[in-house]
């Protein structure tokens, strides 16, 4: 068996280089085809009819007029009479027609009568939550009563972080064709090409072998695109019903923002205590959250500083009549980070202590003290902390107040189950195939880099093929597990293939197979490099054969093999200016110091961190799903009032990639999620530092900022 270890950092030729992404030109030129771009012959267009009520019972549903509408090919009732609707946007019926317009027109003819029931959609105020809260048992560690009495300083506050929507620019949807021979062709917009086939097989009762899933690109997922979804299954049925015509469904924006995925909220009343010297001794939290009808789980608080000795935590899951949550780039970590780092900053303010110092002093309460101390110092340096930071509220007199704040995060990120197949053709062509997907993280590119590195070739010598169930299975792109999984499987498959190639060329090179190696496009003898064959010539020795070898990343073995691991820390420092007369917060700078493992492509790695920082800026300052208590609907299901930062709204972003020999030895660690964690807390803390008080809830829109300054409840 080959030695799968990564080559030494200093010896790598292709890995570690700042390659531009392989599909860059395709994407930037508009040629990249997303599933939502597909137009197939005879294709029908499907649209959903959804409930306007947040809670209701379907009394009757009549699709007869819709069925008769010209161009309509198939209609299905999803919520028959008697169905209890639990959120506005619940799928009630679906219609396929020759054109999208015809489908929409027909949808308007579906008559549904509802018995409207009482709904509950807003959870920010614990007093109003009442019976919708399901308390989980209290957890106590140490002696919080005693700790509260003995603490020199205790800080208490209410903190909240709202429901967000993923707002993927490519909405959820698919093109599907279920032909009379019981074969299903499925082109989704998904984070999980491989597993979606299994889901479809189970849910449509079609043998997996009859299902082919293919996707070239996906326009954003962020955790919301793992399943085939209700509309995926129903549109499949429509295709079958229509005799096997392809059916396309992609949600419209409003529907996307209502049912295409949300991040659960997190609210809490929190009390923290410390000794005069800043040693944190107490944590008490009463938290609640919603992720829809099923409530919302507790964020893992206290976060990062998990070892606070005396703790009391209670949590209630609040059931709201809103669409269910989905995984969100670092599920529950932003909430936990905000609900921990904000109270700690408030504590620091009360202690009249520099918050970076407070965190450094208490690094022992974390799982990786050295990392955090190093990162805190680095982030402080890059943000000019010692020059720009001031005690809370000491930001001068004018209307513009500048402030700095810090947040810390953590994430796993070890590689998922993945199998790669590397094929070497007699003409020297190399193909790498995986049933994986590139979410825009650069997956294609890093696969090519790993294969090229392993085979002694250049990136352009390798053809990467992903996004298809004809390729070996690869895990879902969630949890930042993709890069670890696919790099490791590609490495192993490449080396397995190479081993076979060595056998074929050993004779020609007059050396035993295990004495061969590759470098710079040649197969050569290890201790006699003069004896070599150019790659192409070596491959010609295959005659009519091709070599096709697989390699798998098996999470349980990965750590032992050393190809990938998980577990990183990260620190971010935000620098903001707040106009205290208008409440407008502007980003000056966000510094991200990210702990990491082996970095295959610093360019795409950096992009992940930039993107995560920008997402945090949106979350800290702009984004929130706004529900209406009276109608139970989402009021801002559009891109006008569901606000995202534009190009001028983000300030400067400084990324520090911790590429070191020491980190490199940890193997590959995912990077999509970790940098998406600390930003919101850091920005909130920076605002508190600037204006002298906490804006208790994010996003810190001008409304919330002015309300906080005026002592008004938001």
């Amino acid at each position: 068996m080959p030695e799968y270890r990564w080559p030494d950092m200093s010896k790598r030729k292709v890995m570690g280089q700042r390659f531009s992404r392989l599909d860059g030109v395709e994407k930037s030129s508009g040629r990249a085809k997303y599933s939502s771009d597909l137009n197939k012959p005879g294709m029908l267009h499907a649209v959903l009819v959804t409930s306007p009520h947040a809670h209701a019972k379907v009394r009757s549903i009549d699709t007869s007029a819709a069925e008769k509408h010209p161009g309509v090919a198939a209609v299905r009732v999803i919520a028959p009479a008697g169905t209890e609707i639990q959120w506005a946007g619940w799928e009630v019926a679906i219609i396929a027609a020759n054109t999208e317009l015809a489908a929409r027109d027909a949808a308007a003819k579906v008559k549904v009568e509802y018995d409207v029931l009482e709904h509950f959609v807003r959870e920010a105020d614990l007093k109003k939550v009442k019976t919708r809260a399901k308390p989980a048992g209290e957890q106590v560690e140490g002696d919080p009563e005693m700790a509260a009495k003995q603490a020199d300083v205790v800080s208490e506050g209410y903190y909240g972080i709202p429901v967000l929507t993923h707002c993927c620019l490519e909405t959820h949807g698919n093109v599907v064709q279920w032909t009379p021979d019981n074969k299903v062709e499925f082109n989704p917009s998904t984070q999980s090409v491989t597993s979606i086939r299994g889901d479809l097989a189970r849910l449509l009762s079609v043998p997996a072998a009859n299902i082919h899933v293919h996707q070239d690109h996906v326009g954003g997922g962020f955790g919301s695109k793992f399943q085939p979804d209700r509309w995926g299954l129903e549109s499949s049925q429509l295709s079958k019903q229509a005799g096997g015509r392809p059916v396309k469904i992609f949600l419209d924006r409003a529907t996307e923002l209502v049912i295409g995925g949300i991040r659960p909220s997190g609210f809490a009343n929190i009390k923290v205590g410390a000794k005069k010297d800043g040693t944190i001794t107490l944590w008490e939290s009463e938290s609640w959250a919603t992720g829809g009808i099923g409530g919302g789980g507790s964020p893992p608080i206290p976060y990062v500083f998990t070892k606070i000795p005396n703790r009391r935590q209670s949590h209630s899951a609040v059931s709201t009549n809103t669409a269910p949550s989905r995984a969100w780039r670092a599920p529950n970590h932003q909430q936990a980070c905000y609900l921990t780092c904000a109270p700690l900053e408030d504590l620091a303010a009360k202690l009249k202590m520099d918050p970076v110092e407070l965190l450094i002093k208490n690094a022992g309460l974390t799982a990786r003290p050295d990392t955090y101390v190093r990162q805190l110092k680095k982030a402080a340096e890059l943000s000019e902390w010692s020059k720009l930071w001031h005690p809370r509220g000491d930001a001068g007199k004018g209307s513009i107040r500048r402030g700095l704040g810090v947040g810390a995060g953590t994430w796993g990120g070890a590689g998922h189950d993945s199998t790669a197949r590397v094929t070497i053709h007699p003409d020297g062509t190399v193909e790498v195939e995986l049933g994986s997907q590139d979410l825009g993280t650069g997956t294609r590119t890093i696969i090519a880099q790993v294969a090229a590195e392993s085979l002694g070739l250049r990136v352009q010598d390798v053809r990467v093929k992903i996004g298809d169930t004809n390729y070996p299975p690869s895990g879902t792109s969630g949890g930042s597990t993709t890069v670890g999984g696919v790099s490791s499987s590609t490495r192993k498959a490449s080396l397995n293939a190479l081993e076979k190639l060595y056998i074929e060329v050993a004779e020609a090179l007059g050396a035993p197979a295990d004495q061969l190696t590759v470098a710079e496009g040649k197969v050569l003898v290890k201790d006699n490099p003069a004896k070599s064959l150019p790659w192409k010539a070596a491959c010609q020795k295959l005659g009519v054969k091709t070599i096709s070898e697989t390699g798998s990343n098996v999470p349980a073995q990965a750590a032992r093999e050393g190809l990938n691991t998980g577990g990183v820390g990260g620190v971010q420092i935000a620098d903001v200016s707040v106009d205290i007369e208008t409440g407008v917060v502007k980003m000056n700078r966000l510094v991200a110091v990210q702990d990491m493992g082996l970095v295959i492509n610093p360019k795409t790695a950096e992009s992940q961190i930039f993107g995560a920082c920008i997402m945090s800026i949106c979350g800290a300052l702009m984004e929130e799903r706004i529900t209406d208590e009276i109608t139970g609907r989402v009021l801002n299901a559009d891109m006008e009032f569901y606000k995202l930062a534009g190009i001028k709204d983000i300030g400067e972003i400084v990324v520090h990639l911790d590429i070191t020999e020491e980190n490199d030895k940890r193997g590959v660690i995912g990077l999509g999620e970790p940098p998406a964690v600390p930003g919101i807390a850091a920005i909130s803390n920076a605002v508190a530092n600037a204006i002298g008080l906490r804006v208790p809830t994010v996003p810190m829109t001008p409304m919330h900022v002015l309300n906080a300054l005026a002592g008004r409840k938001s």
Partner: protein
Amino acid sequence: MSQFQDPEERDKVKGKGSGFSRRGFMQGVGVTGAVAPALIGTDAQAQTAPGVMGPAGVAIVLNINGKATKATVEPRETLLDVLRGQLDITGAKRVCDRGSCGACSVLVNGKVMYACSILAIDAQGKQITTIEGFSITGGKAHPVVTAFVAHDAQQCGYCTPGFVVASKAFLDTHPNPTYEQVQDGLGGNLCRCGTYVGIRKAVLEAAKMMKGGSNA
């Protein structure tokens, strides 16, 4: 004067109790017979004045990327939907469909516009340039494209064609942009993945490349 003269429309807006739709997403739901899509009755047709087209399909010719292109459209079809559907020109994306994100950007007589908010029928007689019309010509990538790739100004890439079109239009009128101008110029586009850092660099570099005459 009634705001909604049309009785059907008035009913609809009052929501007949509970049933009105939000942005089409709950269209028709529970609207007890109030929404009749074929609002254009025979009356309207009988009165049709000269030069009036539709509501049924109308044969039109669009000048797209320098080519006269035939299409049959209902007046209510947007340029974006006709491009993406009937004509299979899919670089422009439908994201918000309400003129607030820029993913659908195209050039109309050289000016960048939101194709989701232009009627196809209204685009007749104008030079429409989609990203396909300039991004790669003669096998050569436009400097904006090259710079976007070099600075990794795309992740999922779904907003990217819109940004590239907007950037080209911006550079056409600002050949020597400052950093500040780049930010002001691209305020009509949104990216969810957060590629703005790369875009800012890419546009500045593309400006330099274009002055170097590598492409125009």
